[in-house]
């Protein structure tokens, strides 16, 4: 059900974020529109993961606000964010290693909206990732990196979110697997989910996204469509090595 792209779903308005005394984000503003793949690119330490953590309420902005479909997100506690329809595929996957794959997936569907559709969601995830179905009884910690990433994505889908955030899904994966994971991100988007993707892998992500923001030293430096940024001199020089 490809919804009309364009309506603002998530709006981040001028947030300042600190880790203790160290300021990491300066007046970061951007918006994610319904149905799109929005990419936030930037070098290591630019503040990409901090942005995701702030949207998940694990960090609280000292200034600015975050709105999801008009509702404030930044005032919620971390465990209340998923109820809004925002799920996350965290950096490093963060599966529950001693639980089985299926138990990990079930943990994804605790929110009141997702719970009644649990069986249906499970079927949907297994259909999308047949590999995960094969491994369902195995402890998540024993899976390979690529398989774990699939489970992490599946766990995010189990929440039946409107917005799914990916935090560096290609981290630690081989180029071939990275390709595959980005393919899955597109697949998820094609299922009707809005995607916020945070990546270091600029080349791949700019090619697949609708729009992108470039984060540099905690500030939004550039924005535009994927194609626009691909042909931008600064991006070509600093990120694509062209």
């Amino acid at each position: 059900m490809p919804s009309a792209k364009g309506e603002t779903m998530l709006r981040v308005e001028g947030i300042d974020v600190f880790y203790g005394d160290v300021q990491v984000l300066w007046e970061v503003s951007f918006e994610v529109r319904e149905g799109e793949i929005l990419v936030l690119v930037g070098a290591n330490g630019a503040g990409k993961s901090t942005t995701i953590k702030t949207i998940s309420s694990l960090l609280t902005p000292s200034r600015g606000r975050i709105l999801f479909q008009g509702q404030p997100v930044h005032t919620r506690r971390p465990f209340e964010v998923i109820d809004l329809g925002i799920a996350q595929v965290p950096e490093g996957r963060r599966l529950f290693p001693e639980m089985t794959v299926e138990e990990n997936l079930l943990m994804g569907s605790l929110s009141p909206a997702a719970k009644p559709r649990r069986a249906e969601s499970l079927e949907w995830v297994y259909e999308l990732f047949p590999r995960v179905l094969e491994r369902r009884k195995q402890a998540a910690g024993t899976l390979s990196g690529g398989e774990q990433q699939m489970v992490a994505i599946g766990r995010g889908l189990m929440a039946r979110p409107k917005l799914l955030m990916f935090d560096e899904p290609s981290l630690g994966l081989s180029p071939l697997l990275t390709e595959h994971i980005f393919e899955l991100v597109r697949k998820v988007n094609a299922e009707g989910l809005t995607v916020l993707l945070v990546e270091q892998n600029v080349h791949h992500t700019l090619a697949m996204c609708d729009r992108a923001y470039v984060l540099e030293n905690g500030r939004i430096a550039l924005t535009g469509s994927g194609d626009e940024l691909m042909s931008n001199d600064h991006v070509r020089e600093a990120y694509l090595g062209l």
Partner: protein
Amino acid sequence: MEVFLQTLVAGVLKGGLYALIGLGMTLIMGVMGIINLAHGQMMMVAMYVTYVCFNYLGLDPYLILFISVPALFLLGVLVQRYTLNPLLKVESLLPENQVLMTVGVGMVLTEVARFIFTSNYVSVKTTYSDATFFLGGVSFSVALTIAFCFACALTGGMFWFLLKTDLGRSIRAVAQDAEAASLMGVNAERIRTLTMGLGAGLVAAAGNLLLPIYYLFPDIGGPFTRKAFVITILGGLGSTVGAILGGVTLGLAEAFGATYIGMEFEDMVGLVIFIAVLLFLPGGFKRLTKI
């Protein structure tokens, strides 16, 4: 051979109760990452609850489980919410401070019990306290056998809860990765409070079941905290299967020590095994069972 079988039976039966003590301790260890050094003292409180209900209300000790377990669940919840959770909010405090707090809680519980009940030994004598039955030439203590059955049922129920329910899975998830669990919508603070309640409830059941065959005085908590600690180390910190193996191992070690070395060496045998595990199998049975 008969003595050996007799000792084996006594050890396993006692081990069932120890497993219950260890299971509560290991749950708390897994979720909170701390050793609850008030564990035995909580058990002592449960035993006094049982004693009071038996003496003044004339209830059957096994019926009192329905009072002592909820009462200690509540005590555990209160301890977590009002003494341990506030410590978690101060980031500069190390987890060690929570352990110190449990030591303090244990002391307060002991002294309050002494204030109310004095230091005298008391016991609960039922018709079946000293009763035994024979099976193939081996004698079984009726009270201990009943206690063992309860312990098995409670342990089984606990496993079902942890493996098959959303709440149980959430407890395990918080133990494995609290931040990831909160991203899934789990309120980790509430899970911690619940876990402390469950741990206290489990050890309450053990204390309650033990009382008809044991004695009680305010300082009994300390030795049981030590036993709980030994069981948890034997099993591997945070391991539920390990806690059961550890409990049964300690029960067997004590029984065989008492029979073949001497009554007064009962506790020593347990501690020798404890040291041996630390030296030769650091990480406990968890290293072998992987759960």
